């Protein structure tokens, strides 16, 4: 009987490990975006898997393992690299452009075709320049395709917080890419900034 139980547990463990390894590339890319450093990304991913293995009993089979792993990794990231979980830091009001202001000033909105001419490296840099709390929401929703609900669960915040951080992150990204497009001459300066 004991042997049967052991065999069954072993099988479950293997299935768990196989499923977890299926998310390795995704987790590594996420770790790279969070830490911005390949060596730290490797450490973070390894620690994530070690912790996942230790807490595998708390994972419910058939639920979203990617979200579960991301939650572990994200908490480790804040604990190890940032010296503690983020308090609900207010990032409000740091120079937000209202959508209406953007809309009223046609020069503030680059043509969408301009996006096609921006180098992939520059997009990654723009994402990596976002404050961590904004960056992680972009990673979850835009890169990994998480629903707001799943992202909120991973981050341990209300859905409204996911929405406001995402909105601000997108505004920052737009500004960043727009500045790059102007500086690199992809779009011409419309106004002299005298």
């Amino acid at each position, binding site marked *: 009987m004991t042997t049967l139980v052991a065999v069954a547990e072993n099988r479950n463990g293997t299935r768990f490990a196989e499923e977890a390894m299926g998310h*390795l590339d995704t987790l590594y*890319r996420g770790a790279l975006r969070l830490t911005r450093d390949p060596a730290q990304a490797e450490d973070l991913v390894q620690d994530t898997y070690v912790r996942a293995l230790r807490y595998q009993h708390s994972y419910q089979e058939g639920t979203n393992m990617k979200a579960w792993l991301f939650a572990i990794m994200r908490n480790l990231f804040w604990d190890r690299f940032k010296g503690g979980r983020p308090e609900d830091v207010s990032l409000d009001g740091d120079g937000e452009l209202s959508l209406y202001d953007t*809309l009223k000033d046609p020069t503030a909105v680059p043509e969408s075709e301009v996006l096609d001419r921006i180098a992939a490296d520059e997009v990654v840099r723009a994402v990596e320049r976002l404050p961590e709390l904004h960056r992680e929401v972009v990673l979850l929703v835009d890169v990994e395709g998480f629903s707001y609900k799943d992202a909120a669960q991973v981050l341990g915040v209300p859905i409204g917080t996911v929405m406001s951080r995402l909105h601000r992150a997108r505004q920052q990204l737009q500004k960043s890419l727009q500045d790059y497009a102007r500086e690199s001459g992809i779009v011409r300066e419309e106004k002299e900034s005298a």
Partner: protein
Amino acid sequence: MNCNGCLEKLDLYLDRELTDAELGDVRGHLERCPPCEHRYLLLAGMKRLVKVCCDQGAAPSHLRQKLVQILF
């Protein structure tokens, strides 16, 4: 739906987080309003770009090997 209402829902529309009825309202407005549609195309383009650019590259093989030893 006016421009203000549309812009408030644009992120949700982009991320498919609206009900069918709300989705229809936003889509209807975008079809009639070029400035809002322009804004939407830009947002959608950025989302696509971020996805494509950040979703490249595999974990190093030595990391994979190390994890296999740890996990199996």
